[in-house]
């Protein structure tokens, strides 16, 4: 029996259970915290996002609305923490290169970390000349983003994963039903976001702009953020509350990306705006099969992690991380 009607196909049975699991380790108190990357001086912030209900999608009269933002429906999500910032190259690079990680680590890498699958070295310069320090990591595939989460789990013991599309929108809205968490006024966007109007066509250091009410910086703009979900062009029509919805697929494309980026126009930064991943972003990858790790033509795409308050079992966690990659030609 499926936990909700939004599941289009179950790739791994465990991955469905994951979001309904009631077994469960309950560890930290539900407060903001800083996650250290063990044996380094790198950290990232996590903000608690309380459980709740919201109306997902946009009303028909919202300025700039796209057809795929509806129909609106009430969605409930369980409590989770969300990264206060987009993940930076500083941290992502430790995952990219074991030798580099070992060189800056103050302790030898554990066998688990040592044995992890790491991305292939990208053929191109994946910063696209936009720099690394405190800048968001970009251009990774959803598979790469999930394997990064596995690396984080192996380092920290905490279940980090990508947000579902519902979790992302719920967190971005922070209780608001307007186009943006601060209202409908696009002139206010420059206080909160790097986008086409003010970015000068480059990513920016994380956290330079004001946060949303739930403490999330750059939730709009700077880079788009991976979600966990397959892209379906219409939300399901259901009257009752949709609990922790999640769309899965055995197709590699399209998957959902949220939040707009440094090259997006204002209306693409709306909380309900959806983007779909595209095979074309690997068009210039000269190798076959094409990289399962990199999109050489998606410099606008990054990661923000979440951590559910109730941590599922080890088995369920590994079922999530170990979903088989899909070959791309």
């Amino acid at each position, binding site marked *: 029996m499926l936990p909700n009607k939004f599941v289009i196909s179950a790739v791994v049975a465990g991955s469905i259970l994951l979001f309904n699991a009631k077994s469960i380790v309950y560890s930290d108190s539900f407060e903001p915290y800083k996650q250290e990357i063990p044996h380094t001086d790198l950290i990232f912030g996590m903000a608690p996002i309380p459980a709740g209900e919201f109306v997902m999608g946009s009303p028909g009269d919202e300025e700039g609305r796209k057809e795929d933002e509806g129909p609106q429906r009430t969605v409930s999500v369980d409590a989770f923490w969300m990264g206060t910032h987009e993940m930076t190259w500083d941290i992502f*690079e430790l995952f990219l*290169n074991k030798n580099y990680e070992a060189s800056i680590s103050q302790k030898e890498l554990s066998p688990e970390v040592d044995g992890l699958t790491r991305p292939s*070295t990208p053929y191109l310069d994946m910063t696209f000349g936009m*720099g*690394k320090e405190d800048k968001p990591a970009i251009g990774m595939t959803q598979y790469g983003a999930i394997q990064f989460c596995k690396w984080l789990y192996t380092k920290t013991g905490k279940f980090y994963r990508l947000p579902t599309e519902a979790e992302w929108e719920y967190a971005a809205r922070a209780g608001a039903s307007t186009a943006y968490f601060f209202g409908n006024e696009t002139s206010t966007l420059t206080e909160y976001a790097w986008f086409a109007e003010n970015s000068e066509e480059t990513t920016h250091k994380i956290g330079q702009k004001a946060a949303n009410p739930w403490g999330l910086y750059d939730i709009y703009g700077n880079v788009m953020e991976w979600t966990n979900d397959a892209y379906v062009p219409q939300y399901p029509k259901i009257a009752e509350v949709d609990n922790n919805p999640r769309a899965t697929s055995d197709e590699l494309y399209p998957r959902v990306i949220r939040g707009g980026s440094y090259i997006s126009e204002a209306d693409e930064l709306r909380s309900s705006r959806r983007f779909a991943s595209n095979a074309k972003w690997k068009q210039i990858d000269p190798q076959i099969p094409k990289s399962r790790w990199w999109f050489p033509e998606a410099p606008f795409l990054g990661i923000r992690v979440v951590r559910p308050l109730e941590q599922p079992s080890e088995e369920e966690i590994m079922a999530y991380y170990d979903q088989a990659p899909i070959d791309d030609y």
Partner: protein
Amino acid sequence: MNLKNKNQRRDFIKTSALVTGGMMLSPFSIPGAHAAGSDEIKIALIGCGGRGTGAAFQAFGTDQNIKLVAMADAFRDRLDDSYKALSSKIGTEKVVVTEDKKFVGFDAYKDAIAEADVVLLATPPGFRPIHFEEAIRQGKHVFMEKPVATDANGIRRVIAAAEQAKAKKLNVVVGLQRRYQDNYIETIKRIEDGAIGDIVGGHVYWNGGGVWTRARTPEQTEMEYQMRNWYYFNWLCGDHISEQHVHNIDIANWVKGGYPVKAEGTGGRMVRTGLDTGEIFDHHTVRFTYADGTVIDSECRHFPGAFNKVDEAFTGTKGRAYMNAGNVGKLTALNGNSLYDHDGKDNINPYQQEHNKLFAAIIKGEYAYEDATRSAMSTMTSILGRNATYSGKEISWDEAFNSKIDLMPEKFAWDAMPKVLPDENGLYPHAVPGQTKVI
């Protein structure tokens, strides 16, 4: 070869204009292109790794009726992986490589070339001169990957074979795909038309994190280990200054309309200290001086974690140019005003474009593409840079070009020995600037 760039520039531009214009001298039949009455073009893939397989996909991505009829690789497993990918995605109607047309080993290329009208050469670059010579000898059109050789000896062989290709009117396209990328074509056309005056300086970069390594396994002979881990051995790869940075160096040559007369530079092994990193350097900084005195700085490195930059920038007497592979092409006046800003949205994938052009010319019976000589000259420029950093000395083009040093093994066999071998600790000797002789 003595290069007088200043005088050559006009000729160079004139020649390239003729070539890109697809000038038809007279109607002629294209040797071996396709059987009479058929529009089918038979291709063979020599070198079945990721890039070779990618090139085959791009051949199938053209508008032409392509059949893959033979494959060759030194390793059976590489060939099998490639065949699996191609036959499952393209279908066995077009990937018609029966068991007796799968050729494995050092000599496999000869038989595979014989089966086709057009050959795709995508093995490690050290083999390119041998394979290119054979393809031209057999009268085949060629797509070959860059760089086209790893030492001056190989460069001279490619240039000689290119002369034969010209005489036989065989189209040759080389995978310096920036030459087929709209932002480069459009921006450099404007530079050649004088938009920013004469080019008097520039910088070209390939600063990245490095590439794959493949671990040694106990059953491997030294030859097999080096072949599997080819990136780290000069006879196979030419060092990363050739293997990757040749792209950016080629842009410098394109913009200058010639080749440097000398080079000096610095390089070494800072992070490449392990057992799996062979003999190549991990960084090179080279100053190339052109005949008119213009200096173009070239930088390439493989430093994980460091700042990355892969692009090209030039200064002219009236303005500046900036280009990169992400479809950027910008020209600005010295006062900062924009003169040209390429809109890359509609750029065609340059890897696809080079195949589209090649196969369209072949099917039309045109002789339009002669990339081999200029690609050999740009590869030679990268070898000149390597000579400068390995030796720590100023090296002239003529010295480098005429060098008799031959990096290739004397014999190709799994039990034969390459010229560079590991010491008792498993470490390979590498160049030491100030001591190493490169000429």
